[in-house]
């Protein structure tokens, strides 16, 4: 296998890795991103609450508090450059009894300490006026206007594509297997797709970031524990809230929230349960009932009847104090080996923090490592968003179809996604190679029918555009094929594919 040389190799194409790539793509550097999955954002970056937290919650003085506040500002600055939409919903942290009402003050003071702007303490009446679907038992709320909502898939894809447009190379299905340290310096990572040499390696491996460190013997006591959070999404025609609504936080975290999504649905979740296997994103009967019951206390009109999707995501709960007393993001140049930057334990609010973490990586490289960066002359400052047919006016639609008839064919009828959008996603700077990759980019299959109608057509389009047989189309990468064979195809002798009774 061939060997590749880069200035910087980033391990992991989640939101953190993609944001670091995007940041470094401004400079005259050769940058690669290694991702073991088939697409960007396959881990915790996309199965989360999709909230751009204001920063009112993290403990003052922590890296989390700092990154959250800065990240929130940077997202708003980047959105037009990356071509992503941010919904400035603001967030309510609601109190549901007199006891909880007292905590509003505590949170208010913490918000001030974190330097969050515009935070207010609201009365019951003020709160209910803003969100009429709240339970009448609500006793007041903390209002944080700088919080917002994003499409989590779009955010990652946009950051990665902007990086790719500016020359960053992405290597998918590429898993780090081994690391080579020479004279105290990390020089090479060995993957299933060959060796990658670099001057700097950035560990942005999410729930696996501890394993990456341990490969070079760094921080053996730092262990990521995976906690799973389950979610439900509701039919937008049936359940509707217009804010991000948090319950009062407890020691166990931010609690089960009820939120509007970037697409106008209502989302509830997550709970938090420790799991053994880091990739176990199953949903459980217990968990779904749990989040449903909890959220009904806050928004009583939520009904199990109107659920259109359930999913779960895994969060990297890490710490660098063995006793777990001080949980914070770990953002550092490794003390043990040269050439490694660790970005680990990036749990919530990691998504919103990601651009600030990227900024911090640049700072570390400049100020602590003494790197100098030269601006790239051909840097493209913006990424054009792709067309979203469903959001266009009648006239814009007419014009678009005139230009390209592929936009005249609807493939996903619930979310009104056209063939044109699917083809564009397949041929984008970060190509969508699987059904789920198309789903994440176009929102196809996310509506009431959950893909029932669009599966066959989407498979056909993928097959045609990628020039591969239907039986090789996957849901989300190797092993997840949709179809096994053609009908009436003779099954090989001794094959297990069949009933003896078949006629």
């Amino acid at each position: 296998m061939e060997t590749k040389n880069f200035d910087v190799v980033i391990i992991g194409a989640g939101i953190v890795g993609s944001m670091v790539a995007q940041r470094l793509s401004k400079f005259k550097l050769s940058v690669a991103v290694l991702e073991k999955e088939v697409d960007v954002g396959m881990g915790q970056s996309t199965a989360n609450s999709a909230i751009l937290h204001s920063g009112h919650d993290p403990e003052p003085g922590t890296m989390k508090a700092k990154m959250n506040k800065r990240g929130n500002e940077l997202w708003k600055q980047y959105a037009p450059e990356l071509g992503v939409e941010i919904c400035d919903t603001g967030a309510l942290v609601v109190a549901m009894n007199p006891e909880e009402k007292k905590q509003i003050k505590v949170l208010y003071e913490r918000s001030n300490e974190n330097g969050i702007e515009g935070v207010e303490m609201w009365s019951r009446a003020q709160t209910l006026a803003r969100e009429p679907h709240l339970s009448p038992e609500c006793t007041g709320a903390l209002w944080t206007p700088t919080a917002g909502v994003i499409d989590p898939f779009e955010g990652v894809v946009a950051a990665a594509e902007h990086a790719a447009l500016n020359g960053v190379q992405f290597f998918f299905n590429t898993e780090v297997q081994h690391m080579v340290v020479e004279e105290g310096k990390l020089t090479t990572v060995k993957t299933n797709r060959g060796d990658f040499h670099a001057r700097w390696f950035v560990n942005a491996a999410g729930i696996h970031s501890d394993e990456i460190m341990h490969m070079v013997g760094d921080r053996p006591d730092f262990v990521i524990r995976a906690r799973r959070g389950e979610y439900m999404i509701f039919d937008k025609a049936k359940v509707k809230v217009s804010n991000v609504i948090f319950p009062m936080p407890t020691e166990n975290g931010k609690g089960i929230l009820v939120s509007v999504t970037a697409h106008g649905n209502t989302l509830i979740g997550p709970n938090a349960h420790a799991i053994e296997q880091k990739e176990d994103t199953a949903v459980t009967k217990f968990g779904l009932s749990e989040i449903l019951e909890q959220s009904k206390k806050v928004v009583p009109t939520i009904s199990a009847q109107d659920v259109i999707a359930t999913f779960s995501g895994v969060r990297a709960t890490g710490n660098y104090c063995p006793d777990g007393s001080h949980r914070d993001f770990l953002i550092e140049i490794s003390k043990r080996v040269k050439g490694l930057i660790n970005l680990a334990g990036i749990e919530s609010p990691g998504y919103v923090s990601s651009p600030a973490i990227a900024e911090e990586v640049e700072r570390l490289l400049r100020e602590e490592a003494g790197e100098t960066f030269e601006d790239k002359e051909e840097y493209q400052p913006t990424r054009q968003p792709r067309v979203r047919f469903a959001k266009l006016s009648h006239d814009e639609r007419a014009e678009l179809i005139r230009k390209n008839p592929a936009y005249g064919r609807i493939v996903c009828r619930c979310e009104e996604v056209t063939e044109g959008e699917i083809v564009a996603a397949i041929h984008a700077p970060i190509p969508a190679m699987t059904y789920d990759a198309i789903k994440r980019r176009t929102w196809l299959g996310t509506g009431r029918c959950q893909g029932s109608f669009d599966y066959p057509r989407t498979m056909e389009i993928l097959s045609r555009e990628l020039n591969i047989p239907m039986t090789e189309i996957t849901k989300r990468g190797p092993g997840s094929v949709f179809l096994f064979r053609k009908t009436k195809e003779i099954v090989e002798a001794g094959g297990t594919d069949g009933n003896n009774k078949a006629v």
Partner: protein
Amino acid sequence: METTKQYDVIVIGGGPAGMAAAIKAYEEGKGKVLIIERNDSLGGILPQCIHNGFGAVNFDRDYPGPQYAYMYEKKLRSYDIEILLDTMVLEISAEKEVYAMNSAMGYLHLQSKAIVLAMGCRERTRSQIRLPGTRAAGIYTAGTAQRLVNIEGYMPGKRIVILGSGDIGMIMARRFTIEGAKVLSVLELQPFLTGLRRNYVQCLQDYGIPLHLSTTVNKIMGADRVEAIETVQVDEQYNPIEGSEEIIECDTLVLSVGLIPENEISRKAGVKLDRRTNGPIVDSYMMTTIPGIFAAGNVTFVYDLVDYVSQAGELAGLNAARYARNERIDSQLGIRLKPGRNVGSVVPQKIMITKDDETGTSITLRPNALIEHRVTVELKYGDETVVSFKEQYARPAEMMFHKLKEKELARLEEIKSGELTAVIS
């Protein structure tokens, strides 16, 4: 956007209800009738239903789905009815404007005097029944699996478990077996079969496929593709019975867990929907709460025989043509009808008193209890029974029909408005 064209009746959906509606509307009014179909062929879901069992009522025959659809398509095409295929309706308005599009003609803005909604239904999904487990590939609704096998010509599984004993589930169990896959079992949450008995005999028994009642899926396993499912038995309150879990190794789970009328564009236009049926509230003319917008077929109420879907389409088409001709369709006076004991849903939700024999004076209801003995169906006005008829049994899988007799109508005319409750005892 400028209006491209004017019509008397636009029918949305080219399935059995839509085709029947367009034919009848044309025969009645000889006006400008347009039928718009999302798919690239007419027939709705029928072309993929290659099994037989269609046409017993309307043709006194036992046709396969494509043949049944062809009977209507032939007639439709013999008339001067415009047909738009591969065309999606995105929006309609209460003023009966239709926004539609296709890749050949682009974006269309049409105006009609009357509209018939005939968009059919969709399948309930895994999320809607909150099935626990992973989100691996290999989980299909029965209709999607049917399309993949019968239209696309691909096998989505080798070792298959089916959840739901509805007709599509059982028919697919047979279909998969014939195509060389192994159907390991059909699971049903209810203590009784939810599809037709004849399908149980012809699709499961004849092929040695086991049916497990009071059993459901407890967990889906497998990271990339389904690897196994855990089943569990449930008690009378549908609570899982501990210790009854069983693991079945399979690569595919097919869901046949119910159909829901598809009313996205109805809702956008402001048509009022019935929470019970998930379809528009209709009167005896099949008119919705918006004058001039009619609805028929599975879009109003999931029928169990296609023959009845076509009949409902005819009724809607007939009245849409009359409405387009400015004939007065009185939507003011009517008697509301609501489901009571042992009744899941009723259509129409508003009975109109009419002397016109062609117009609907029929009611359709679906029981929500299994009563395996002779039952009486009553429409009650307060304590008084206005309409009463007997049936051999009441099964949720089988709808009941009743055409109101003259005497019953005369009594209804005395009531004029108010509310009736349908009960089964």
